[in-house]
């Protein structure tokens, strides 16, 4: 059967059809939809784990136990899981293990654009790179077979453009039957206990495995030579293959479905058949450097950029500059003398509970060490309330380090519920253990919002939506040795302020759990009631606009005295969170209760 699938959906189908039984992941754009697609499929177990390292360990355990397993993460997730990635390369597994990681060239929603093919080489793990949704589906099965044939984990590297592009995929719609007997655990301490003595014996095995994989790569069906005109030969991988075909329809192409290890003889043969050899690859010159090490003249990053995504326009224009195409190949562009336009960046949604907390940290002039989540967007004007963001879980450790450096003012660490479970917990433990005085605000919006509302250990639901015990933030903080723990409603500005002032007055570690459901959760949406501005009372002072809510807009009506436009609330956007109503000094924004009174009259 044929279906139009995204690369992520295709990976899920590929996993299901090729007999993956266990899959684990931490959500992260652009990889999230893989597990969401796989989880409802029959006869497969999938779970969200608190972080990527746990996900990989779970998948490793399943593969040790003889079941085909898959761990899924975004590119920076592999940094978190790197320790496990390296040991499982050393041990191998009993059944197949594939690690799917989605890189994010151009950083559509990431803090860097690291090229994870380096991890493959670093850990001696083969790397497969699909070029479209069909290959995304097919390569999962190929990866699993390679994993079992060579006793190695396999890295399946996607990029945003593969994960989030849709193409026609031919599916089987069936999968191999599950063996009926329970798996028995095979004990093999020499292979699976990586103490130095055993590890020293395993390292040569791993090196020898890479050599065999390199030999395998020579005849691997997905390392494909397409001989056409011999004047130009292009080596390419992943989505870059599509751009190469589009811009150079007559060029000869060596498409590498496996980019580590590379097939050296195949590359030498291909290079000998073309006059000029180039590599088109996104991000780092990974293939290019491998080829150059063979002593073969090759060009790549001298023509095409390292930074950002490619597309056919960039490939075409750089190729023209490099003399690979005539200047007549330029695609004419329409006349656009449009001048500067107002930007439309992603913003905290109307009704976002984080907004109130940041309004208060601004009021108290606090420097905020932030973390990864929707709340990172509070760095933007008009809030401008978040001052660092590096990676998952960094906020608390950074704020603690700032305090230990002797900075007079108290920085505040701000971290979301899911991010706290991910890597925030050890950092909070560190604050308590080392007698810091960092104030940690846990923004508990009862979901993993940024990636589209995934469950986490704090929500009381599993990936499948089944009820499960919800972790207790307050009890966790107490158990770590933190006495001063407040719980507040993020929508209640007074409550947030009182708690923060109490923490600031005491020289000890403190936690404020700011709790309020994400306004976009389906249950919460049912309770939206748009507020209204009392035009008589509003004098256009603009205080409410500083809250930075998209539902608050300038009306066409000017205040007679101030001459400034009055505030208006867009009823299609407003959720009725009442943060602006608490901020208004003239009580011109009606609270929910006042609305119903007004209606009653």
């Amino acid at each position: 059967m044929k279906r139009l699938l995204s690369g992520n959906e295709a990976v899920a189908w590929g996993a299901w059809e090729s007999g993956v039984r266990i899959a684990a992941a931490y959500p992260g754009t652009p990889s999230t939809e893989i597990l969401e697609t796989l989880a409802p499929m029959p006869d497969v177990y999938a779970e969200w784990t608190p972080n990527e390292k746990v996900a990989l360990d779970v998948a490793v355990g399943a593969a040790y136990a003889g079941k085909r397993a898959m761990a899924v993460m975004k590119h920076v997730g592999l940094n978190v899981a790197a320790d496990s990635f390296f040991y499982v390369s050393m041990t191998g597994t009993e059944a197949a293990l594939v690690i799917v990681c989605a890189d994010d060239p151009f950083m559509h929603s990431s803090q860097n654009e690291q090229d994870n093919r380096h991890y493959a080489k670093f850990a001696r793990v083969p790397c497969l790179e699909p070029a479209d949704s069909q290959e995304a589906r097919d390569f999962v099965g190929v990866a699993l077979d390679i994993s079992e044939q060579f006793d190695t984990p396999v890295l399946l590297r996607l990029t945003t453009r593969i994960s989030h592009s849709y193409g026609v995929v031919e599916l089987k719609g069936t999968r191999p039957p599950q063996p009926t007997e329970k798996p028995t655990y095979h004990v093999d301490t020499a292979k699976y206990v990586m103490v130095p003595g055993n590890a020293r014996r395993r390292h040569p095995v791993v090196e020898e495995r890479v050599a065999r994989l390199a030999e395998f790569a020579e005849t691997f069906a997905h390392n494909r030579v397409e001989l056409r005109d011999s004047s130009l030969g292009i080596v390419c991988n992943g989505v870059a293959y599509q751009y190469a075909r589009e811009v150079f329809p007559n060029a000869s192409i060596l498409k590498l479905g496996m980019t580590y290890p590379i097939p050296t003889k195949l590359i030498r043969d291909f290079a000998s058949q073309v006059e000029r050899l180039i590599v088109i690859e996104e991000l780092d010159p990974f293939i290019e450097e491998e080829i150059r090490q063979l002593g073969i003249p090759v060009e790549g990053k001298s023509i095409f950029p390292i930074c950002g995504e490619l597309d056919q326009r960039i490939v075409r224009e750089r190729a023209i500059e490099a003399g690979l195409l005539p200047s007549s190949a330029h695609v004419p562009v329409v006349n656009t003398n449009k001048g500067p336009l107002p930007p439309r960046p992603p913003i905290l949604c109307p009704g976002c509970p984080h907004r109130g907390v940041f309004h208060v940290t601004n009021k108290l002039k606090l420097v905020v060490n932030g973390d990864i989540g929707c709340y990172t967007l509070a760095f933007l004007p008009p809030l401008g309330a978040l001052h660092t963001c590096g990676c998952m879980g960094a906020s608390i450790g950074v704020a603690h380090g700032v305090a230990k450096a002797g900075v007079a003012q108290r920085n505040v660490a701000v971290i979301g519920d899911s991010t706290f479970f991910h890597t925030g917990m050890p950092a909070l433990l560190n604050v308590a253990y080392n007698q810091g005085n960092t104030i940690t605000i846990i923004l508990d919006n009862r979901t993993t919002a940024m990636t589209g509302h995934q469950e986490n250990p704090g929500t009381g639901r599993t990936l499948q939506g089944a009820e499960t015990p919800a972790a207790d933030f307050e009890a966790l903080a107490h158990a770590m040795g933190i006495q001063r723990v407040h719980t507040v409603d993020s929508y209640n500005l007074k409550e947030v302020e009182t708690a923060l002032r109490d923490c600031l007055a005491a020289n000890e570690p403190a936690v404020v759990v700011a709790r309020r459901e994400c306004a976009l959760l389906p249950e919460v949406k049912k309770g939206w009631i748009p507020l209204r501005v009392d035009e008589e009372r509003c004098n256009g002072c603009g205080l409410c606009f500083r809250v930075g809510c998209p539902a608050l807009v300038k009306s066409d009506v000017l205040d007679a005295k101030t001459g400034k436009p009055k505030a208006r609330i867009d009823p299609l956007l407003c959720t009725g969170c009442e943060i602006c109503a608490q901020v208004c000094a003239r009580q011109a924004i009606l609270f929910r209760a006042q609305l119903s009174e007004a209606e009653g009259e």
Partner: protein
Amino acid sequence: MTKIDFLLAGVGGQGTILASDLLSSVGLSVGHDVKKSEVHGMAQRGGSVTSHVRWADKVYSPLIGRGEADFFLAFEKLEAVRHIEMLHPNGVVLVNDYAISPLSVSSGDDEYPDDERIKTVLAAATPNYYWVPGMRLAEELGNARVNNVVMLGSLSHFLSGVPLEAWLQAIPERVPPRFIELNRRAFLLGREAAGKL
């Protein structure tokens, strides 16, 4: 060789993705190879959203290059101007006569370009630009949310090679049952309106 590239642009929550899903289904049903690629920003709502849909005998790149879009369907006026350079010099752009103020505009730090400036930019780019009252027509149907499908109906007017049935059959594939009739009417309203532009 047939090749039709569609760029769709709007603001998060406007239904850009549904419209591009419908367009993809139609392309497949009339026998093309189809690829679709989405760029949605970090927040769930409020940011710029673009979607690339490509129909051809064989589609390679999932993206449209700058200057290659044969049709540009803009669900919001500012987004039409923002992405106009994606249009082929002979391309057709359909603009929903609807503005959503970015935060910097509602807070008074920026100004939203007026209609005259928008029309000047579009007219300089292509002789084929159409100002479609998509939002007004959707509101006449009693549901502003279907302005995306109204716009898709208008687009269909320019694709004379695609039978009406292909469009109408795509709707039930992508729309929940209770909204099929509404979307069907929205589509036909947009298609009819385009004939009078």
